[in-house]
Protein backbone atom coordinates (compact mmCIF):
# COMPACT_ATOMS: atom_id res chain seq x y z
CA UNK A 1 0.00 0.00 0.00
CA UNK A 2 2.68 2.40 1.12
CA UNK A 3 4.87 1.34 -1.76
CA UNK A 4 2.12 1.98 -4.22
CA UNK A 5 1.70 5.49 -2.93
CA UNK A 6 5.42 6.15 -3.24
CA UNK A 7 5.41 4.90 -6.74
CA UNK A 8 2.54 7.17 -7.59
CA UNK A 9 4.47 10.15 -6.27
CA UNK A 10 7.40 9.13 -8.38
CA UNK A 11 5.22 8.89 -11.47
CA UNK A 12 3.75 12.29 -10.90
CA UNK A 13 7.24 13.73 -10.98
CA UNK A 14 6.97 14.55 -14.68
CA UNK A 15 6.85 12.87 -18.03
CA UNK A 16 10.59 12.32 -18.20
CA UNK A 17 10.68 10.58 -14.88
CA UNK A 18 7.64 8.56 -15.84
CA UNK A 19 9.18 7.37 -19.08
CA UNK A 20 12.33 6.42 -17.23
CA UNK A 21 10.40 4.56 -14.59
CA UNK A 22 8.40 2.68 -17.16
CA UNK A 23 11.41 1.92 -19.33
CA UNK A 24 13.32 0.59 -16.37
CA UNK A 25 10.46 -1.71 -15.48
CA UNK A 26 10.12 -0.18 -12.05
CA UNK A 27 6.55 -1.34 -11.97
CA UNK A 28 7.60 -4.97 -11.81
CA UNK A 29 7.43 -6.74 -8.49
CA UNK A 30 10.71 -6.95 -6.59
CA UNK A 31 12.25 -3.89 -8.16
CA UNK A 32 13.65 -0.89 -6.28
CA UNK A 33 11.25 1.61 -4.75
CA UNK A 34 12.73 5.02 -4.14
CA UNK A 35 11.39 7.44 -1.56
CA UNK A 36 10.42 10.82 -3.07
CA UNK A 37 13.32 13.25 -3.21
CA UNK A 38 13.10 15.70 -0.30
CA UNK A 39 13.04 18.86 -2.41
CA UNK A 40 12.38 21.16 0.55
CA UNK A 41 15.33 19.91 2.53
CA UNK A 42 17.77 19.80 -0.38
CA UNK A 43 16.83 23.26 -1.62
CA UNK A 44 17.14 24.88 1.83
CA UNK A 45 19.89 27.47 1.95
CA UNK A 46 19.97 27.70 5.73
CA UNK A 47 21.07 24.78 7.89
CA UNK A 48 18.09 25.34 10.20
CA UNK A 49 15.64 25.09 7.29
CA UNK A 50 17.26 21.93 6.00
CA UNK A 51 16.97 20.43 9.49
CA UNK A 52 13.32 21.43 9.73
CA UNK A 53 12.61 19.88 6.35
CA UNK A 54 14.19 16.66 7.53
CA UNK A 55 11.70 16.72 10.39
CA UNK A 56 14.40 17.39 12.96
CA UNK A 57 12.98 20.11 15.16
CA UNK A 58 15.28 19.42 18.08
CA UNK A 59 18.67 17.75 17.99
CA UNK A 60 20.37 15.72 20.69
CA UNK A 61 24.14 15.81 20.62
CA UNK A 62 25.52 12.29 20.61
CA UNK A 63 28.91 10.70 21.06
CA UNK A 64 27.55 7.57 19.44
CA UNK A 65 27.82 9.20 16.04
CA UNK A 66 31.30 9.01 14.59
CA UNK A 67 32.21 11.17 11.62
CA UNK A 68 35.32 10.04 9.77
CA UNK A 69 36.69 12.78 7.51
CA UNK A 70 40.04 14.51 7.05
CA UNK A 71 40.92 17.52 9.25
CA UNK A 72 42.19 19.19 6.11
CA UNK A 73 40.78 18.37 2.69
CA UNK A 74 43.37 18.57 -0.05
CA UNK A 75 40.67 18.93 -2.64
CA UNK A 76 37.32 20.43 -1.70
CA UNK A 77 35.70 18.75 -4.70
CA UNK A 78 36.21 15.28 -3.22
CA UNK A 79 36.00 15.23 0.56
CA UNK A 80 35.57 11.71 1.94
CA UNK A 81 33.01 11.53 4.75
CA UNK A 82 31.91 8.38 6.58
CA UNK A 83 29.30 8.35 9.33
CA UNK A 84 28.88 5.50 11.81
CA UNK A 85 25.88 5.55 14.13
CA UNK A 86 25.97 3.24 17.12
CA UNK A 87 22.53 4.45 18.20
CA UNK A 88 20.13 1.47 18.28
CA UNK A 89 17.43 1.40 15.60
CA UNK A 90 19.15 3.98 13.41
CA UNK A 91 16.61 4.80 10.68
CA UNK A 92 18.43 7.44 8.69
CA UNK A 93 21.69 9.34 8.42
CA UNK A 94 21.90 12.80 6.84
CA UNK A 95 25.11 14.64 5.95
CA UNK A 96 25.21 18.42 6.01
CA UNK A 97 28.10 20.67 4.95
CA UNK A 98 27.11 23.77 6.87
CA UNK A 99 28.80 26.39 4.70
CA UNK A 100 27.70 24.99 1.35
CA UNK A 101 25.16 27.04 -0.64
CA UNK A 102 22.73 24.15 -0.17
CA UNK A 103 23.92 22.53 3.06
CA UNK A 104 22.16 19.14 2.88
CA UNK A 105 24.33 16.79 0.81
CA UNK A 106 22.59 13.47 1.33
CA UNK A 107 20.06 11.50 3.33
CA UNK A 108 20.39 7.75 3.72
CA UNK A 109 17.35 5.82 4.89
CA UNK A 110 18.52 2.62 6.47
CA UNK A 111 16.08 -0.29 6.42
CA UNK A 112 16.13 -3.45 8.51
CA UNK A 113 19.26 -5.33 7.45
CA UNK A 114 21.27 -2.17 6.85
CA UNK A 115 23.90 -1.13 9.34
CA UNK A 116 24.20 2.40 10.77
CA UNK A 117 27.08 3.21 8.49
CA UNK A 118 27.51 5.15 5.25
CA UNK A 119 30.58 6.41 3.45
CA UNK A 120 30.62 8.83 0.53
CA UNK A 121 32.39 11.90 -0.87
CA UNK A 122 31.08 15.42 -0.91
CA UNK A 123 31.97 18.77 -2.45
CA UNK A 124 32.84 21.55 -0.05
CA UNK A 125 33.29 25.12 -1.22
CA UNK A 126 35.05 26.26 1.92
CA UNK A 127 36.07 25.29 5.43
CA UNK A 128 33.01 24.14 7.30
CA UNK A 129 31.56 21.93 9.96
CA UNK A 130 30.27 18.69 8.56
CA UNK A 131 27.17 17.71 10.52
CA UNK A 132 25.61 14.29 10.70
CA UNK A 133 21.98 13.98 11.73
CA UNK A 134 20.80 10.54 12.75
CA UNK A 135 17.18 9.56 13.16
CA UNK A 136 16.62 6.68 15.56
CA UNK A 137 13.32 5.60 17.10
CA UNK A 138 11.81 8.83 15.86
CA UNK A 139 14.34 11.07 17.64
CA UNK A 140 17.09 13.12 16.00
CA UNK A 141 20.71 12.99 17.13
CA UNK A 142 23.68 14.96 15.83
CA UNK A 143 27.47 15.34 15.78
CA UNK A 144 29.85 17.59 13.86
CA UNK A 145 33.40 17.60 12.62
CA UNK A 146 35.29 20.52 11.14
CA UNK A 147 36.93 20.03 7.74
CA UNK A 148 39.33 22.71 6.56
CA UNK A 149 39.28 23.22 2.82
CA UNK A 150 42.20 24.76 0.99
CA UNK A 151 42.43 25.62 -2.66
CA UNK A 152 44.75 23.30 -4.49
CA UNK A 153 47.51 23.89 -6.96
CA UNK A 154 49.81 26.88 -7.37
CA UNK A 155 47.45 28.63 -9.82
Amino acid at each position, binding site marked *: MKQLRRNFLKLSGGAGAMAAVAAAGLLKAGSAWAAPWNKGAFESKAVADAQKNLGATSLIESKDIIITAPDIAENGATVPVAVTSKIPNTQSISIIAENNPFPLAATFEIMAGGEGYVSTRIKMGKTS*DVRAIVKADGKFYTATKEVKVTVGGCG
Partner: protein
Amino acid sequence: MKKMRGIGLVVLSAVAFLAVAPPVMAQGDLSVGRKMLNEDNPGDLWVDIGKELFYQKRGPKKVSLEQCDFGMGPGNLPGAAARMPRYFADTDRVEDMESRLITCMTKLQGFDSNELMKKAISSPRSKGSDIEALALYVTSRSNGMKINVTLSHQKEYDAYKAGEYIFYRRNGQTDFGCVQCHGEPDKRIRLQDLLHMTVKAGAQEVASTWPAYRGAHYVVRTMQWRLNDCVWQMRLPDLKYGTDYSIALTTFLNHRGNDAVMQVPGFKR
Protein backbone atom coordinates in the same frame (compact mmCIF):
# COMPACT_ATOMS: atom_id res chain seq x y z
CA MET B 1 24.09 12.93 25.50
CA LYS B 2 22.86 16.39 26.25
CA LYS B 3 20.52 18.69 24.43
CA MET B 4 22.24 21.14 22.19
CA ARG B 5 21.35 24.76 22.40
CA GLY B 6 22.13 25.45 18.79
CA ILE B 7 24.79 25.65 16.22
CA GLY B 8 26.36 28.76 17.72
CA LEU B 9 27.98 26.69 20.42
CA VAL B 10 29.66 24.41 17.92
CA VAL B 11 30.91 27.32 15.86
CA LEU B 12 32.35 28.95 18.99
CA SER B 13 34.26 25.85 19.94
CA ALA B 14 35.58 25.55 16.39
CA VAL B 15 36.92 29.09 16.59
CA ALA B 16 38.57 28.34 19.91
CA PHE B 17 40.19 25.30 18.36
CA LEU B 18 41.56 27.34 15.47
CA ALA B 19 43.16 29.83 17.82
CA VAL B 20 45.26 27.21 19.57
CA ALA B 21 45.94 24.97 16.59
CA PRO B 22 49.59 24.73 15.62
CA PRO B 23 50.26 26.57 12.35
CA VAL B 24 51.24 23.79 9.98
CA MET B 25 50.67 20.10 10.46
CA ALA B 26 50.05 18.56 7.09
CA GLN B 27 50.94 14.88 7.07
CA GLY B 28 48.89 13.51 9.98
CA ASP B 29 45.83 15.53 9.16
CA LEU B 30 45.86 14.62 5.52
CA SER B 31 46.46 10.91 5.93
CA VAL B 32 42.87 10.03 6.98
CA GLY B 33 41.45 11.49 3.79
CA ARG B 34 44.15 9.99 1.59
CA LYS B 35 43.54 6.52 2.98
CA MET B 36 39.79 6.83 2.41
CA LEU B 37 40.26 8.03 -1.15
CA ASN B 38 42.83 5.37 -1.99
CA GLU B 39 40.68 2.51 -0.74
CA ASP B 40 37.90 3.27 -3.19
CA ASN B 41 39.40 4.81 -6.27
CA PRO B 42 37.04 5.97 -9.05
CA GLY B 43 39.97 5.40 -11.39
CA ASP B 44 39.04 1.70 -11.20
CA LEU B 45 36.06 2.51 -13.42
CA TRP B 46 38.46 3.24 -16.28
CA VAL B 47 40.21 -0.13 -16.14
CA ASP B 48 37.22 -1.82 -17.77
CA ILE B 49 36.82 1.02 -20.26
CA GLY B 50 40.46 0.56 -21.26
CA LYS B 51 40.01 -3.18 -21.53
CA GLU B 52 37.07 -2.77 -23.86
CA LEU B 53 39.02 -0.33 -26.04
CA PHE B 54 41.96 -2.71 -26.13
CA TYR B 55 39.99 -5.66 -27.51
CA GLN B 56 37.66 -3.67 -29.77
CA LYS B 57 38.39 -3.61 -33.50
CA ARG B 58 39.11 0.07 -34.00
CA GLY B 59 40.71 2.59 -36.31
CA PRO B 60 40.80 2.76 -40.11
CA LYS B 61 42.25 -0.78 -40.19
CA LYS B 62 39.54 -2.14 -37.87
CA VAL B 63 41.80 -4.25 -35.70
CA SER B 64 42.21 -4.62 -31.97
CA LEU B 65 45.41 -3.96 -30.06
CA GLU B 66 45.92 -7.67 -29.40
CA GLN B 67 48.90 -7.72 -31.73
CA CYS B 68 50.58 -4.82 -29.92
CA ASP B 69 53.90 -5.83 -28.39
CA PHE B 70 54.63 -4.09 -25.12
CA GLY B 71 57.95 -5.89 -24.88
CA MET B 72 56.81 -9.35 -23.81
CA GLY B 73 55.52 -10.43 -27.21
CA PRO B 74 52.31 -9.44 -29.07
CA GLY B 75 49.33 -9.17 -26.75
CA ASN B 76 51.26 -10.49 -23.76
CA LEU B 77 50.35 -7.93 -21.12
CA PRO B 78 51.07 -9.33 -17.65
CA GLY B 79 54.24 -7.72 -16.35
CA ALA B 80 54.90 -5.74 -19.53
CA ALA B 81 54.23 -2.29 -18.06
CA ALA B 82 56.44 -3.05 -15.06
CA ARG B 83 59.40 -3.20 -17.45
CA MET B 84 58.71 0.02 -19.31
CA PRO B 85 60.11 2.30 -20.62
CA ARG B 86 62.20 -0.10 -22.69
CA TYR B 87 63.87 -0.35 -26.09
CA PHE B 88 61.72 -1.55 -29.00
CA ALA B 89 63.49 -2.80 -32.09
CA ASP B 90 60.58 -2.07 -34.47
CA THR B 91 60.83 1.65 -33.81
CA ASP B 92 64.52 1.56 -32.81
CA ARG B 93 63.59 3.72 -29.85
CA VAL B 94 63.03 3.60 -26.11
CA GLU B 95 59.29 3.99 -25.51
CA ASP B 96 57.14 4.51 -22.45
CA MET B 97 53.53 3.34 -22.13
CA GLU B 98 52.03 6.39 -23.83
CA SER B 99 54.44 6.47 -26.77
CA ARG B 100 54.14 2.70 -27.25
CA LEU B 101 50.36 2.96 -27.40
CA ILE B 102 50.68 5.65 -30.05
CA THR B 103 53.05 3.44 -32.03
CA CYS B 104 50.60 0.54 -31.98
CA MET B 105 47.49 2.62 -32.59
CA THR B 106 49.24 4.23 -35.56
CA LYS B 107 50.89 1.16 -37.08
CA LEU B 108 48.32 -1.52 -36.29
CA GLN B 109 45.06 0.39 -36.23
CA GLY B 110 45.91 3.13 -38.72
CA PHE B 111 45.08 6.10 -36.47
CA ASP B 112 46.77 9.42 -37.20
CA SER B 113 49.44 10.01 -34.58
CA ASN B 114 48.96 13.78 -34.49
CA GLU B 115 45.24 13.34 -33.91
CA LEU B 116 45.93 10.83 -31.14
CA MET B 117 48.39 13.14 -29.42
CA LYS B 118 46.06 16.10 -29.68
CA LYS B 119 43.38 14.19 -27.76
CA ALA B 120 45.66 12.18 -25.48
CA ILE B 121 45.30 14.46 -22.47
CA SER B 122 41.59 14.86 -21.85
CA SER B 123 39.86 17.90 -20.40
CA PRO B 124 39.15 17.86 -16.69
CA ARG B 125 35.68 16.50 -15.83
CA SER B 126 35.42 14.78 -19.21
CA LYS B 127 35.04 11.07 -19.84
CA GLY B 128 38.79 10.83 -20.38
CA SER B 129 40.81 9.95 -23.48
CA ASP B 130 41.28 6.56 -25.11
CA ILE B 131 44.99 6.65 -24.36
CA GLU B 132 44.39 7.42 -20.67
CA ALA B 133 42.05 4.42 -20.36
CA LEU B 134 44.26 2.12 -22.44
CA ALA B 135 47.41 3.08 -20.55
CA LEU B 136 45.62 2.33 -17.30
CA TYR B 137 44.31 -1.02 -18.49
CA VAL B 138 47.64 -2.25 -19.85
CA THR B 139 49.51 -1.01 -16.75
CA SER B 140 46.93 -2.61 -14.44
CA ARG B 141 47.89 -5.98 -15.94
CA SER B 142 51.17 -5.58 -14.04
CA ASN B 143 49.42 -4.90 -10.72
CA GLY B 144 51.01 -6.86 -7.91
CA MET B 145 54.23 -7.33 -9.90
CA LYS B 146 57.55 -5.69 -9.20
CA ILE B 147 58.85 -2.79 -11.27
CA ASN B 148 61.83 -4.07 -13.19
CA VAL B 149 63.11 -1.50 -15.67
CA THR B 150 66.40 -2.95 -16.80
CA LEU B 151 69.05 -1.15 -18.79
CA SER B 152 70.59 -3.38 -21.40
CA HIS B 153 70.31 -1.76 -24.82
CA GLN B 154 72.59 1.24 -25.36
CA LYS B 155 69.57 3.45 -25.96
CA GLU B 156 68.20 2.48 -22.55
CA TYR B 157 71.44 3.59 -20.91
CA ASP B 158 71.31 6.79 -22.94
CA ALA B 159 67.71 7.49 -21.92
CA TYR B 160 68.52 6.90 -18.26
CA LYS B 161 71.46 9.29 -18.26
CA ALA B 162 69.66 11.92 -20.31
CA GLY B 163 66.73 11.67 -17.89
CA GLU B 164 69.05 12.22 -14.98
CA TYR B 165 70.59 15.21 -16.72
CA ILE B 166 67.17 16.74 -17.38
CA PHE B 167 66.06 16.07 -13.79
CA TYR B 168 68.82 18.40 -12.57
CA ARG B 169 68.72 20.91 -15.44
CA ARG B 170 67.65 24.36 -14.21
CA ASN B 171 65.83 26.61 -16.64
CA GLY B 172 62.96 29.00 -17.24
CA GLN B 173 61.53 31.88 -15.23
CA THR B 174 61.64 29.90 -12.01
CA ASP B 175 65.23 28.63 -12.33
CA PHE B 176 63.78 25.19 -11.61
CA GLY B 177 64.90 21.73 -12.53
CA CYS B 178 62.88 18.78 -11.21
CA VAL B 179 65.22 18.48 -8.24
CA GLN B 180 64.29 21.90 -6.82
CA CYS B 181 60.91 20.48 -5.79
CA HIS B 182 61.70 16.76 -5.58
CA GLY B 183 65.14 16.61 -4.00
CA GLU B 184 64.35 16.70 -0.28
CA PRO B 185 62.08 14.77 2.08
CA ASP B 186 58.74 16.04 3.45
CA LYS B 187 58.43 19.08 1.21
CA ARG B 188 55.24 20.70 0.05
CA ILE B 189 54.16 23.33 -2.46
CA ARG B 190 51.40 24.96 -0.45
CA LEU B 191 49.68 21.88 0.99
CA GLN B 192 50.62 19.57 -1.85
CA ASP B 193 53.19 16.97 -0.97
CA LEU B 194 56.22 16.69 -3.20
CA LEU B 195 57.70 13.25 -3.63
CA HIS B 196 61.36 12.94 -2.67
CA MET B 197 62.51 11.38 -5.91
CA THR B 198 66.24 11.27 -5.33
CA VAL B 199 65.75 8.42 -2.86
CA LYS B 200 64.49 5.00 -3.87
CA ALA B 201 61.19 5.17 -1.97
CA GLY B 202 60.15 8.34 -3.79
CA ALA B 203 61.10 7.00 -7.20
CA GLN B 204 59.23 3.79 -6.34
CA GLU B 205 56.07 5.74 -5.67
CA VAL B 206 56.38 7.41 -9.06
CA ALA B 207 57.04 4.15 -10.87
CA SER B 208 54.18 2.21 -9.28
CA THR B 209 51.24 4.67 -9.12
CA TRP B 210 50.78 6.03 -12.65
CA PRO B 211 48.33 6.14 -14.41
CA ALA B 212 46.38 7.64 -11.53
CA TYR B 213 42.95 9.10 -10.85
CA ARG B 214 43.33 12.82 -10.41
CA GLY B 215 40.69 13.87 -7.89
CA ALA B 216 40.63 17.53 -8.87
CA HIS B 217 40.10 16.63 -12.55
CA TYR B 218 37.85 13.57 -12.08
CA VAL B 219 39.73 11.71 -14.82
CA VAL B 220 42.58 9.24 -15.13
CA ARG B 221 45.94 10.85 -15.88
CA THR B 222 49.17 9.30 -17.14
CA MET B 223 52.76 10.18 -16.28
CA GLN B 224 52.93 12.27 -19.45
CA TRP B 225 50.23 14.55 -18.01
CA ARG B 226 52.18 14.82 -14.75
CA LEU B 227 55.28 15.95 -16.63
CA ASN B 228 53.28 18.42 -18.72
CA ASP B 229 51.87 19.98 -15.58
CA CYS B 230 55.29 20.12 -13.92
CA VAL B 231 56.89 21.98 -16.81
CA TRP B 232 53.88 24.30 -16.94
CA GLN B 233 54.48 25.18 -13.30
CA MET B 234 58.15 25.68 -14.12
CA ARG B 235 56.97 28.28 -16.65
CA LEU B 236 58.37 26.34 -19.60
CA PRO B 237 56.53 26.26 -22.94
CA ASP B 238 54.12 23.50 -24.00
CA LEU B 239 55.67 20.04 -23.73
CA LYS B 240 54.90 17.90 -26.77
CA TYR B 241 53.36 14.46 -26.23
CA GLY B 242 55.55 11.36 -26.18
CA THR B 243 58.93 12.97 -26.76
CA ASP B 244 62.32 11.55 -25.82
CA TYR B 245 62.47 14.16 -23.04
CA SER B 246 59.51 12.62 -21.22
CA ILE B 247 60.63 9.08 -21.97
CA ALA B 248 64.12 9.82 -20.64
CA LEU B 249 62.78 11.30 -17.40
CA THR B 250 60.43 8.35 -16.97
CA THR B 251 63.24 5.89 -17.65
CA PHE B 252 65.40 7.60 -15.03
CA LEU B 253 62.66 7.59 -12.39
CA ASN B 254 61.22 4.14 -13.09
CA HIS B 255 64.61 2.44 -13.14
CA ARG B 256 65.37 3.97 -9.77
CA GLY B 257 61.94 2.84 -8.63
CA ASN B 258 62.69 -0.82 -9.34
CA ASP B 259 61.31 -3.43 -6.93
CA ALA B 260 58.23 -1.35 -6.06
CA VAL B 261 54.99 -3.29 -6.47
CA MET B 262 52.81 -1.91 -9.25
CA GLN B 263 49.43 -0.73 -8.00
CA VAL B 264 47.40 1.33 -10.45
CA PRO B 265 45.37 3.42 -10.66
CA GLY B 266 47.02 5.58 -8.03
CA PHE B 267 44.95 8.33 -6.44
CA LYS B 268 46.30 11.86 -6.68
CA ARG B 269 44.72 14.88 -5.10
